[in-house]
């Protein structure tokens, strides 16, 4: 099995507390140094990530048209930017758009581009549920799931990213390599979906993001439960790239109980949601 950046990071995270107590100091130092190298992202890395994300986002918009509803798009941006202000990638300007599609789904591209379908909005009952879906997508960006899945993350040596190296190449080879990565990202969004472990991580990060931003964290479980009830479990392809699974909802319940999130009385903002999302 391919050892992705996230898995390496996760293994390192698990190993650190043990290493700190039991291993040789030199080994401890090396592992900590590697962990920090993975965290180091330069402004140039971010620029390339945004350029890459723009290409992916343009593909998403060619497939599902941006809704020409300025008031609705602005509202979704206000909700999304509220969450982004309480997230962990301050170097990114997140941008949100409502796209066509009568099915309930949402997508995100590296660099901060987030999309939610009109069908998803129609399936929601309040602003907290919209925030939950956007927070999940923001988490895919903040945790750099696509970048890591395509092995485009910063190298442990601290050198340029795979994407930056592509842009640094000359001529058609560089363009081809870059477009190949864009193709793979688009296929991941519309066909394969994220890895289950990335979906679980995005849910976990979203719950914490919702609570930090003052939205009811239970909205995520409520929305997923409703979608699961509406869509047949056998559905495959684009409509089900975020399969609401028993494992996901169990993880959400578990984290919510551990953190006392279910006891919080935070905003649902149903009236404001209904004022902006017309369902007739």
């Amino acid at each position, binding site marked *: 099995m391919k050892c992705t950046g996230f898995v390496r990071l996760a293994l390192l995270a698990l190993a*650190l507390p043990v290493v700190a107590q039991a291993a040789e100091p030199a080994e401890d130092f090396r592992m900590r140094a590697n962990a920090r190298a993975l965290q180091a992202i330069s402004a140039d890395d971010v620029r390339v990530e945004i350029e890459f994300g723009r290409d992916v986002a343009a593909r998403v918009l060619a497939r599902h048209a941006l809704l020409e509803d300025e008031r609705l798009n602005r509202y979704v941006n206000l909700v999304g930017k509220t969450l982004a202000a309480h997230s962990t990638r301050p*170097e990114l300007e997140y941008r949100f758009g409502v796209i066509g599609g009568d099915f309930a789904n949402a997508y995100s591209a590296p660099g901060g581009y987030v999309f939610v379908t009109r069908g998803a909005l129609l399936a929601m009952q309040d602003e907290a549920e919209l925030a939950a879906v956007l927070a999940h997508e923001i988490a895919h960006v903040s945790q750099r799931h696509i970048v890591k899945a395509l092995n485009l993350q910063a190298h442990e040596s601290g050198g340029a990213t795979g994407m930056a190296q592509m842009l640094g190449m000359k001529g058609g080879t560089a363009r081809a390599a870059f477009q190949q990565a864009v193709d793979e990202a688009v296929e991941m969004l519309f066909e394969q979906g994220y890895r289950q472990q990335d979906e679980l991580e995005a849910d976990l990060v979203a719950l914490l993001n919702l609570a930090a931003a003052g939205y009811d964290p239970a909205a995520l479980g409520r929305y997923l439960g409703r979608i699961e009830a509406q869509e047949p479990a056998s559905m495959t392809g684009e409509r089900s790239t975020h399969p609401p699974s028993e494992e996901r909802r169990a993880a959400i319940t578990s984290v919510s109980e551990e953190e006392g999130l279910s006891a919080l009385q935070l905003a649902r903002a149903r009236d404001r949601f209904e004022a902006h999302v017309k369902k007739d």
Partner: protein
Amino acid sequence: MRRTFLTMALLTPLLASGGEPLYLQAASAQLLEQPRFGAQTVAVIQKGESLEPTGESGRWRRVVHQGREGWLPGLLLGDRPPLGEVSVLDGRSVDLEQQARRRPSGTAGVAAARGLRDDARNRLSNDVRADYGALQRMEHIHVSASDLRRFMEERDQ
């Protein structure tokens, strides 16, 4: 098992410990008296402020900020100051029209060169359109800091 692994991987601090400073990565966050949401707020921390780590509990880190001790979600902390906002939209050198024109042949060539599965190649060859006009409209949706602050305040009234 996988859930436990993920939770630990995400929230076990890779971050500095034993005196090395931590930095808030979010725009702002409440320093809480207890390691749980809903606890009393001790102070409000702003992005990039330096914090001294003094302990941890589950997903939370205990830190000292300007002499006041409290708890923050470990997820919001990093061992480096956060980057300033990065943009490619001001003075970018990428020609969007040229980018759009080159896409079909470039994509098909790459697909062939890589030996992609036939179904994947067919799908890619049919999916080479890109709508940069819509992308730019999306990028032009502007929300000012004051609009955002007012939006948050209205929700909580």
